[in-house]
């Protein structure tokens, strides 16, 4: 045929309208342009103006359209009619649903508010849900941080007043060497991809530290295929090398950290190991100019890293001495750690040398005048262009807190935090740990709790214990077992409630937390706990209320289901009071708004909480005349004030001279302003204030003006974390509040004020010879937890999850791609399909997280690969470590924060004959939403 080119319309109609809102396909919170045709969602792309994603969008975000049409969407409130776990429900109206919930909750609030346990999963409205729980009066509230990444958050905040996560970022513009440890894909995921792209485009180097070389590690210039749980040891070896070479930033350490602060050296004193302070409580240093003691922040003082102080025959040394003494020890030499870390000594040395070379030989100087908190004005800002990022990979271990601390210490020794080219905080951070709330747990029936549930403890006095010393909270957060559990321990709630330890509860109320499946350890055990009955035939956990947008596995275990909307059908605020979308150069927050109205009888969960609060007449939600303050969540977002002038959204508040960002009275047109601006608000930090923030008085003034805090809060980075030492002192017998004897040794060993490495606990509770292999999960870039797994497009990318084995283990067990293996831990066994991956630590196996589904859930057909070949590693992990003959059961958690130690898991592998489907297999649950249609061709326009 000859060339006959048809005439094309190359300018077709794109959409009737673009509605700009915030993505919720993961926790990244990108801005999205939702293209509408005839009132329907036609196409979703990234918002070019948005500070988080600047136009780009990941696979999850683009697949959001398949979330709004998902057949798994719940359609109406559900009342259980079959046994718990069967999935048998009847649809009811909202009046009845709210009446049932109120009839359960009202007597609890009146008589014993602690009998309500209210835990929320992956929401982004914790400042609101905690406010609700506080007004209800229960101490039993937290979100999911305890089973996620609290080690990262707590270690960052205690050490440097802010964490990686989404609360900080490398200085992508200036950094020249970026080192990444075991990153999870759901926080800052597009910003990290964009950042790596920028580094690659200018030839800057990336080092990846991860047992698995996928994703970001696949593009890293150098890969460290480390043995799981040894990152801390590897980092301390880098510190050893840097100290030995004198490659640390002494000026930075002296000025901005507690390295020069004196530590009480009197071994007989109850203050042994605490920081020395003056009468006003200020930490003391020695002024190198005068040789005298001085408060650290005294104008003109030059804190001395070297000098000691002798009083009464006792010499008190600065933190710097203790630090050098510890890490120069030969136990941290590369040769000494290499075998355990699975990293050659030469590689450790070369990485230390490269860090030092870039930090000190490629120093950056920006000519920006700024004044520090001692009143000294500097003409420029010095940068060390080495930056780091890490997430769950290093934190979900029982040594995770101290490993995260070690990484922060490394950054600080290099002088690379809050400087050009280094790691930078995003507002509302930096913020010293001391100005966060402490935990509150005092219950008064019929009244609100005495303060916020969660916070940061500074010593035994802040623990959440009742007068008799027993835990005040159902999850035993802030107790001697895990004193610094800043995010609570959601993963312990069901097992503690089932055991009645520390007490029985009545109603378990959960939101978006798939606890009967992928969000729990010991999944089968949790299902049994949720359905277990006592002698009288009543459920041991008497009532369960659950809210979710989709027909998840957890829905089947609820007595009352409150159906939520999808993210495109609701109001939300991504708030500075919570987890905002700030950049290192700007404060920013955002909203979601209903770009489409629900076509089902569902309500946004936050609105339902307000409706419940109104029925219960909770104080913070009720005016003095007894009338409700808020009709729905949008009303709350606009009109709630946490304190005068400070509300959920910082943008377009009513200032004295018109709309202003930061402080101001509520503005009735606020949401319209956000929508007109693309769904977000950005307030830039002045150029001279964007670095050195913790010490930069210009930034401090800006932060006060913006409402981040009420007075300037400059502080020192805590290389030495004094609150940890206070717990050690208690364990050594000092003070009124004393730990139980069986925990003394653990507290002394783990709550070290300087970063320390110890082997993951599982190593000493199981036979490492019998279970020689480490087993991990990773989160795919194109799927998020259980939120998207039923997504019609994304499940074609990740529809099942083989167990990936390294070459050595494939050969050792005579396995070939497609074979099956029996994988056994001290707790359980699974039988699953295997696949080969060479770019993997030779003692590690792994799979994708949360791809496996239970039959009947998510509107998938019962023969879907998620249910037949997919699987969970959760069956191999228990919330308690196996007994080791001491008569105790130790938690499978970090002993400091209580973070679930998912990644401590050890297994053995055996070849298996292929079973009919992955084992264990569970009976199907009845689908709450029926079955999905077969084929799909989704085009909304003509």
């Amino acid at each position: 045929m000859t060339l006959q080119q048809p005439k094309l319309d190359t300018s077709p109609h794109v959409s009737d309208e673009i509605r700009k809102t915030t993505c919720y396909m993961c926790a990244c919170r990108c801005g999205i342009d939702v293209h509408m045709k005839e009132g329907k969602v036609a196409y979703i792309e990234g918002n070019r103006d948005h500070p988080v994603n600047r136009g780009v969008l990941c696979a999850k975000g683009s697949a959001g359209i398949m979330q709004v049409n998902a057949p798994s969407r719940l359609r109406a409130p559900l009342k259980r009619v079959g046994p718990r776990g069967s999935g048998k429900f009847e649809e009811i109206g909202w009046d009845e649903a709210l009446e049932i919930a109120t009839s359960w909750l009202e007597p609890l609030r009146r008589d014993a508010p602690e009998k309500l346990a209210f835990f929320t999963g992956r929401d982004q409205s914790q400042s609101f849900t905690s406010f609700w729980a506080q007004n209800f009066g229960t101490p039993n509230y937290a979100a999911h941080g305890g089973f996620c990444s609290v080690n990262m958050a707590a270690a960052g905040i205690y050490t440097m007043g802010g964490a990686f996560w989404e609360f900080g970022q490398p200085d992508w513009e200036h950094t020249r060497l970026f080192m990444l440890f075991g990153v999870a894909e759901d926080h800052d995921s597009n910003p990290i991809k964009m950042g790596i792209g920028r580094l690659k485009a200018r030839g800057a180097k990336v080092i990846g530290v991860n047992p698995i070389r996928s994703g970001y590690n696949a593009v890293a210039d150098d890969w460290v295929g480390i043995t799981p749980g040894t990152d801390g040891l590897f980092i301390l070896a880098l510190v050893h090398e840097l100290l030995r070479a004198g490659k640390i930033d002494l000026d930075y350490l002296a000025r901005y950290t507690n390295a020069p602060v004196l530590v009480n050296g009197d071994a007989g004193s109850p203050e042994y190991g605490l920081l020395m302070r003056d009468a006003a409580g200020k930490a003391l240093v020695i002024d190198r100019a005068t040789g005298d003691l001085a408060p650290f922040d005294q104008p003109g003082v030059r804190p001395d890293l070297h000098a000691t102080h002798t009083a009464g025959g006792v010499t008190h040394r600065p933190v710097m001495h203790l630090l050098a003494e510890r890490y120069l020890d030969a136990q941290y030499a590369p040769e000494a750690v290499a075998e355990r870390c699975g990293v050659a000594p030469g590689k450790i040395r070369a990485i230390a040398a490269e860090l030092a070379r870039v930090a000190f030989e490629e120093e950056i100087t920006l000519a920006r005048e700024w004044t520090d908190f001692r009143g000294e004005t500097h003409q420029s800002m010095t940068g060390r262009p080495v930056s780091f990022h890490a997430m769950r990979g290093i934190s979900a271990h029982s040594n995770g807190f101290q490993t995260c601390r070690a990484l922060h210490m490394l950054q600080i020794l290099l002088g690379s935090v809050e400087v050009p080219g280094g790691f930078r905080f995003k507002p509302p951070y930096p913020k010293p740990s001391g100005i966060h709330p402490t935990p509150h747990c005092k219950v008064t029936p019929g009244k609100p709790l005495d303060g916020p549930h969660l916070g940061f403890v500074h010593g035994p006095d802040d623990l959440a214990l009742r007068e008799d010393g027993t835990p005040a909270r159902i999850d035993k957060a802030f107790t001697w077992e895990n004193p610094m559990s800043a995010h609570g321990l959601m993963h312990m709630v069901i097992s503690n409630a089932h055991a009645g330890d520390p007490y029985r509860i009545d109603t378990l109320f959960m939101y978006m937390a798939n606890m009967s499946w992928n969000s729990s350890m010991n999944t089968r055990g949790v299902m049994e706990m949720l359905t277990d009955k006592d002698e009288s035939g009543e459920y041991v956990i008497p009532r369960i209320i659950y809210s979710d947008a989709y027909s998840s596995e957890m829905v089947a275990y609820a007595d009352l289901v409150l159906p939520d909307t999808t993210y495109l059908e609701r109001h939300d605020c991504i708030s500075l009071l919570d987890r905002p979308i700030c950049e290192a150069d700007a404060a920013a927050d955002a909203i979601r708004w209903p770009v489409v109205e629900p076509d089902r009888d569902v309500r946004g969960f936050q609105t339902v909480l307000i409706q419940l609060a109104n029925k219960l007449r909770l104080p913070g939600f009720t005016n003095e005349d007894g009338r409700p303050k808020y009709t729905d969540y949008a009303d709350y977002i606009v009109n709630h004030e946490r304190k005068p002038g400070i509300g959920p959204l910082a943008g377009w508040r009513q200032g004295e001279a018109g709309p202003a960002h930061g402080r101001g009275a509520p503005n009735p047109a606020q949401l319209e302003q956000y929508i007109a601006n693309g769904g977000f608000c950005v307030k830039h930090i002045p150029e001279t204030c964007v670095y050195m923030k913790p010490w930069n008085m210009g930034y401090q003034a800006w932060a006060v003006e913006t409402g981040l805090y009420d007075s300037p809060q400059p502080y020192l980075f805590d290389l030495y974390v004094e609150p940890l030492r206070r717990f050690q002192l208690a364990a050594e017998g000092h003070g009124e509040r004393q730990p139980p004897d069986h925990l003394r040794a653990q507290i002394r060993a783990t709550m070290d004020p300087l970063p320390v490495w110890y082997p993951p606990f599982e190593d000493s509770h199981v036979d490492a010879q019998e279970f020689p292999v480490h087993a991990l999960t990773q989160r795919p870039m194109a799927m998020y937890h259980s939120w998207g797994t039923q997504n019609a497009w994304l499940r074609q990318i990740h529809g099942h999850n083989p167990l990936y084995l390294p070459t050595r283990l494939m050969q050792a067990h005579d396995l070939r791609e497609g074979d099956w293996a029996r994988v056994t831990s001290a707790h359980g066994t699974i039988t699953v399909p295997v696949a080969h991956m060479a770019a993997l630590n030779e003692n590690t196996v792994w799979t994708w997280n949360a791809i496996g589904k239970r039959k009947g859930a998510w509107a998938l057909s019962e023969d879907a690969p998620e249910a037949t070949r997919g699987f969970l590693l959760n069956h191999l992990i228990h919330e308690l470590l196996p007994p080791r003959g001491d008569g105790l059961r130790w938690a499978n958690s970090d002993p400091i924060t209580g973070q679930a130690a998912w990644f401590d898991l050890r297994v053995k592998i055996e070849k298996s004959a292929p079973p009919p489907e992955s084992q264990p297999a569970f009976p199907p649950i009845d689908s709450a939403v029926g079955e999905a249609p077969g084929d799909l061709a989704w085009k909304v326009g003509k």
Partner: protein
Amino acid sequence: MTTLPETTDKKLGLVIDLDTCVGCHACVISCKGWNTENYGAPLSDQDAWGASPSGTFLNRVHSYEIQPEAGAAQLVHFPKSCLHCEDAPCVTVCPTGASYKRAEDGIVLVNESHCIGCGLCAWACPYGAREMDHAEGVMKKCTLCVDRIYNENLPEIDREPVCVRTCPAGARHFGDLGDPDSAVSQLVAERGGVDLMPEQGTKPVNKYLPPRQKDELGTTGMHAPRLDPVIEDAGGFLGWLDKALDRLPGGAGSASDSETR
């Protein structure tokens, strides 16, 4: 048999950076979204929530492992869509003229109203870049977003293929590879961009930028800086520390111990 144009005015195509692609599939799904709603029949999915979901995609990401003779194995993410070849065998094999290459910009397209769904073009393509849509029975392929790149209803900045617009890592580039001065041609020259399977003689317009050399730190023969130890133990450290502090501006100390009684 359908004829190819002898020359095209432009050679529009993609440059894909394999050193930067993290394998996130953003391009795959944004492509699915745009092309379901736009050019031609929607990209359908069969058994979408069932046992064997199978849908039409114009762009897919494959992952390959490389085991160098020495050193750690590597993983390369490899996005693949139509390469808009100059000598496109999928066009010449088409019995109806539905498959064609545009004279003005070199984009290879399927005129769906002439496509009989015979699938010959998919057999002819050595890259496996064409997919039959099972709902519509027509052949689907990358259009290089021909309905975006000239679309006057879009802001100028958005007149590029969606996969390029969405790529978070910036691993995808679009432009005229027939113009040696274009940004994409320059990038190919700088980074040693390559043709995919040149031995097939298809003269693909799309180019791939190869991964850079990896895992050089700590290998023998690498001229990395070494750290020279200045300190052997904590005692030595303190001596070094005092001297080093003296060297800092205004750093000369007055005493190494303060005493109170």
